[in-house]
């Protein structure tokens, strides 16, 4: 969204009000003393204030603001919305202040450049979190008045996973897939070979020697007892929907961290056994949007 005249408003700051007061005093003195030069002083200060309004407006006008994306977060953390502000024109922008949901941040923009800002927004509940409206404002150059933009709204939403909470250990249920002799995992005792690195593999299992010889990232695989798989099931949790979801979320995090394979079963829905970053986020997303009206996952 490019900021222009229609989205920018202006008001005096407290300093501007004080300035107006001083201007009134000087004006009254010039009238009373009938002093031509004092009139000139009054009007010069007034003109400078008027012209500085143009400067203030120009400082913000023409900036292109775009909310890029936001990584998913757990409820209770703060979501970092990435915002790009681009200065397409060839003059410097000084002291631009971005306001968003109580947070503010000041930045400067060199001619024809752009910045990326991370705007923290607290995410108290699971589900979708829309980026709150952003406003840009600036009191540059004199600080006598400030301009601010109309709220910049965006369709970018963050997914907030349930807070991982719960005291239950990973359920040792009798899953038919509990032991997977044929499968290999990164857990266990005996080295069983290498496979290509998948995001989320624990760093201690990366075959660093191979990295050092300029090969691709490889992950060491081990076979043994540790190659476990878990079914994380709704029925194994207790309490309210939210606490159940939190428990499931906690299990997912635990299982993923330990590089176990896990599947998830919720009423009317089942996610097969797997591991890795994609699977992990898929599970968490399902938990995040479980039972929410607008929770239909996009794509």
């Amino acid at each position, binding site marked *: 969204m490019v900021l222009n005249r229609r989205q920018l408003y202006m*008001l005096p*700051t407290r*300093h501007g009000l*004080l*300035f107006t007061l*001083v201007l009134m*005093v*000087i004006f*009254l*003195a*010039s*009238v*009373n*003393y*009938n*002093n*031509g*030069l*004092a*009139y*000139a*002083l009054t*009007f*010069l*200060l*007034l*003109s*400078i204030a*008027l*012209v*500085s309004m*143009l*400067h203030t*407006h*120009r400082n913000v*006008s023409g900036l292109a603001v775009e909310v890029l994306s936001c990584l998913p977060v757990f409820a209770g953390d703060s979501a970092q919305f990435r915002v790009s502000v681009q200065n397409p*024109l*060839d003059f*410097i922008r*000084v*002291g631009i*202040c971005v*306001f968003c949901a*109580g947070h*503010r941040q*000041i930045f*400067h923009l060199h001619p024809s450049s752009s910045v990326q800002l991370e705007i923290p927004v607290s995410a108290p509940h699971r589900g979708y979190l829309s980026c709150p409206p952003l*406003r840009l*404002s*600036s*009191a*540059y*150059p*004199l*600080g*006598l008045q*400030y301009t*601010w933009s109309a709220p910049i709204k965006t369709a970018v939403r963050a997914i907030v996973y349930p807070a991982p909470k719960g005291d239950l250990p990973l359920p040792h249920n009798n899953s038919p897939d509990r032991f997977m002799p044929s499968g290999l995992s990164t857990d266990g005792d005996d080295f069983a070979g290498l496979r290509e690195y998948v995001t989320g593999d624990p760093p201690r299992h990366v075959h660093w020697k191979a990295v050092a010889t300029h090969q691709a990232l490889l992950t060491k695989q081990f076979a043994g007892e540790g190659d476990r798989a878990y079914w994380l099931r709704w029925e194994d949790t207790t309490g309210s929907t939210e606490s159940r979801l939190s428990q499931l979320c906690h299990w997912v995090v635990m299982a993923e961290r330990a590089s176990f394979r896990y599947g998830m079963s919720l009423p009317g829905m089942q996610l097969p056994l797997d591991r890795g970053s994609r699977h992990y986020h898929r599970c968490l997303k399902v938990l995040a949007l479980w039972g929410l009206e607008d929770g239909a996952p996009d794509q």
Partner: protein
Amino acid sequence: MSISFALGAVRPPDQMPDRLACNWMLISAALAVGFHCFHLPVWLSGFAACILLWRFFIENHAWRVPPRWVRWFLLLLTALLVSKQYGTLLGRDPGVAYLTLLVSLKILEIRSCRDYLLAVFLIYLLLLGALLFSQSLLTGLYMGLLIVLTTHTLILLNRPQPLTYRQSLRLGLTLCLQALPLLLIIYLLFPRIQGSLWGLPQDAFSARSGMSEQVSPGSINRLYNDDSIAFRVTFAGERPPQHDLYWRAFVLSDTDGRAWQRHQGTGDGRTNWRYRAKTPAVGYTVLLQPHQQRWLPALDLPAPLQRNVRMIEGYALAAVTPVHYVRRYHLTSHLRYTTGPLSANETAHNIHWPIKPSERITSLLQEWHQTTSSPAEIVRQALRFFNKQPFYYSLTPPLLYGDALDTFIFDTRIGYCEHYASAFVALMRLSGIPARLVVGYQGGEWNAAGDYMIVRQSDAHAWAEVWLQGEGWARIDPTAAVAPERIELGASALRQLSAQGATIGQLSISDAKRLISPSWLRHAWQHLSWRWDAINSGWNVWVMDYGREAQFQLLKKIGMETPNWLSAVIAMIAAIIFSLLLLSALWMHRRKKQDPVVKLYNKFCNKLAKAGLARAPTEGPLDFSRRSIQERADLRDPVLRITAEYIELRYGYFSSTRLNHFRQRVTAFRIP
């Protein structure tokens, strides 16, 4: 959430200013206080300088800010000293003194951004104080400089980073320059209010004044070395000759034999100051410097034209209120005239002489009366007497004791215009001819650079008027009989002559002229000073005398038929909006000229786009060339070469020959 809270939430936060901002603020403050050190008590200027230095060391050398009680103690102590010095809290001078204190102590205790702002605003008030002392062109320039500096300081206070002080100074200057057209519009069109809103303090106007309306020996002499300008005159038509330039200020007819003053009686009820003109009117405009009195100089004899100008006794003009500000008025005068008969009352107080004449004077007068009885002839006798007897003109005459008239006429015989005029009037009155003293200015300096006349305080002059049957009041200047140079060449010539040791009254006019003809250096200097005075005169007209009347004249000139308050305001607002829009159109949305390299590259891209190969906005030149070659292998060579040259010119080594080469290549690029 209330609206005000919502608005406050998006106000950018105050910044804590850095050392750079503080130092520039100190420079502005020093400049503001510096103007006043000419009239502030020395200890106060010194105190302010010390405090500013103190702050400088706090800011730059990590000195400690003094504790609160020290600051309070300093404030109380100095305030006490100031009130003791001036004896009052009110008025311009003590006001400026207190402001100086406030500015320096505020700067000493600065903690927050708001403190800085307050200090800048106090500097504005101090500047206002300076304008109450002087409104000259130089003060105007000083004001401009200080405003640029304070604007620069405000910028630094508001956002110190990432601007360097150079950028900030340039921005401050830009702001001020861009404000100038607006200033001009508002200054000229903002309705001026006539008169004061409340009473002015006693010391509102500087004490400087010209002649007082009372003449005692020495009172005009005092002005001889005063080169300041009394008034300037622009003539509508041709300039009258130098010896006709008698600027009448006031007429004195009451005397105690020594001092002269205006007629104190109720007058004779004459309200109709008519005379018969013998020559056509001379039109002119006087730009009078403030002298805190009512008299308005005019050529003999004026016809009153303006409002707020009265004609008083002796065809002199007087303003309704004392002249506190530069004042401009238009007049017409007739240089030759006949006034009517004299009433008995007028005759009586114009032949009154309070002291019994001495033996020598009585016998002198008897001698004259024996030869003739016609008053006109007696006047001629008297002038011949001054001319033939060894009378000398001097600016430093001996003091007169006892019977001043007798001593002057028979013993010392040295004096200047005032002595000759008053002695002449005395002799006439003792001979029974109505006579009176006229005080004003004679001559003036023609400013060739601005085509106007400069009349200085040193041109002050006194002459006599006698009433003759058939002629009415006639001007007689006995000084001309003694020292014709005074009238022909002016007062400054007289001073130069006496500085060169010439005896005034003995030289012929041409000899005197030769003696004082300026060297080329002096000549050049004179031209420069004339030009400077012409600028100052314009400044006076547009700054000091620009009031409602001048404003309405201006509005008439720009086509407003019946100017009034409301139309001026409407015109002003329209002009402000128009110029702001113009400024934003010309400057805000101005783009820098595009880099010729980029321009040529864009031309190349456009050619490819026509062939269906549009460059995506995010696509770099290398990516674009790769994609182009993939799609059009036949263009491989030119595309690769142009891209390589473009990258080299834009990001590598630039030279104009390379640019020309690049241009040729882009122009030659064709897509089959």
